[in-house]
């Protein structure tokens, strides 16, 4: 059983619908006992870092995520869920969970490409250049694109954590992974077939990062 961690951050139902479409049983919960019982945990999120962290702390879910990470259970972060597993976010200078060393930064103003100033948020489809193999991208065409919508991006301190990078006038880390944790800035649940394949791969993953 896959658990989607419930907190006040947006796109939880769309993740649920995508799991339903790939025939995967799931539960949406913020109850740590139910989360403990799940084989995999998905940590989604749309919204602001500060409010999300306040809610997670209130529910004790930040501490639960740390324990869960130690336990070896496969964890998948999506969008805001990816940003707040780092130590800190520039979004309202928020202290985050700190499963992975690093900070979440805001895109600089005046990013340029082909003579045009790029818009913020980075909204739309973009590709991911894999820096190394990861089981979640098994069977996916390297030219596949994914749906992004964000103004901040994760910047892990350890380069070994960077699995994929995306170009938006600058290269940023769009997929990171450490041990049993994998996290992406884009929305697999809104990225058509390649996105659904990533979710399938996650559900079949045992948490080994090779």
């Amino acid at each position, binding site marked *: 059983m896959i658990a989607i961690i419930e907190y006040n951050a*947006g796109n939880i139902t*769309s993740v649920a619908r995508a799991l339903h479409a790939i025939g995967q049983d799931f539960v949406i919960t913020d109850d740590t006992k139910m989360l403990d019982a799940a084989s995999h945990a998905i940590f989604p999120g749309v919204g602001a870092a500060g409010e999300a962290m306040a809610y997670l702390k209130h529910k004790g879910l930040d501490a639960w995520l740390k324990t869960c990470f130690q336990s070896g259970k496969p964890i998948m972060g999506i969008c805001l869920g990816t940003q707040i597993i780092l130590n800190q976010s520039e979004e309202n200078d928020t202290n985050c969970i700190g499963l992975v060393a690093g900070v979440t930064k805001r895109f600089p103003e005046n990013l340029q*490409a082909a003579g045009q100033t790029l818009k*913020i*948020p980075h909204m*739309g489809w973009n590709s991911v250049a894999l820096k190394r193999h990861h089981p979640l991208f098994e069977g996916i065409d390297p030219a596949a694109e994914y749906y992004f919508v964000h103004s901040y991006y994760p910047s892990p301190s350890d380069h070994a954590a960077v699995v994929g990078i995306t170009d938006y006038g600058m290269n940023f880390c769009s997929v990171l992974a450490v041990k049993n944790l994998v996290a992406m800035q884009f929305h697999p649940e*809104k*990225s058509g077939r390649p996105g*659904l394949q990533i979710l399938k791969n996650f559900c079949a993953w045992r948490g080994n990062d090779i």
Partner: protein
Amino acid sequence: MISKRIIPCLDVRDGKLTKGIKFKGNVDIGDPVEAAREYYEQGADEIVFYDITASSDKRDIMIDVVRRVAETIFIPFSVGGGIRNLDDMRRVIGAGAEKISVNSAAVQKPEIITQGAKAFGSQCIVLGMDVKKVKVGKQTPSGYEIVIEGGRKYTGLDALWWAREGERLGAGEICLNSIDADGMQDGYEINLTALVSDNVRIPVIASGGAGKPEHLADVLTAGKADAALIASMVHYRTYTISQIKHYLSDQNIKTRMLW
């Protein structure tokens, strides 16, 4: 690098497409959910639904459509038309839409943009703008004015001012529709699109006037649009989305080519 988005727009009334759309085997599809599935299969990057249901007691039908679309396609989609307040937004987003588009309601009650952005995030709020070309004047220095009620009513708002104001109020994206070009299939309003896109920091979807792939190429380059809305040219099967994307790709305009 980010791809330009190609977005079919479907008009829905009382839960049915207002015009049947011809697809495989020339069969007319009247069901918006089936049409959404077809465009998803053709490579649409996003889908826009515009609800033109007149009577408010039939609004629940649209919510049901949104729910069924959300179970069928796994790309973002937005819903506009008849969204008056935060409750309307909540119902549409709760049913599974990524974005809501506000148009007349935002002109009459600009605070709805800010309220929506606070409640759901800016990325959820699309400011829909219907624009007509007018004389350059004190009130409309850009030479473009915001109109509502399908173009029948002039608001006195300068289009460029309103685009910036919408951004300031918290809109995450602008869908810019030229009433002059709409339905003519003679090309987008390139000047208007470039003017707005150059002066806001949020993405701009160009709308109105698409008749052939060259029109999309123009608005995505000279018009500086981030995305292009299309309707008749795909609804009547003159082109498929896949054909349009291949054309754009040949013109070195990057779109998502794998789906």
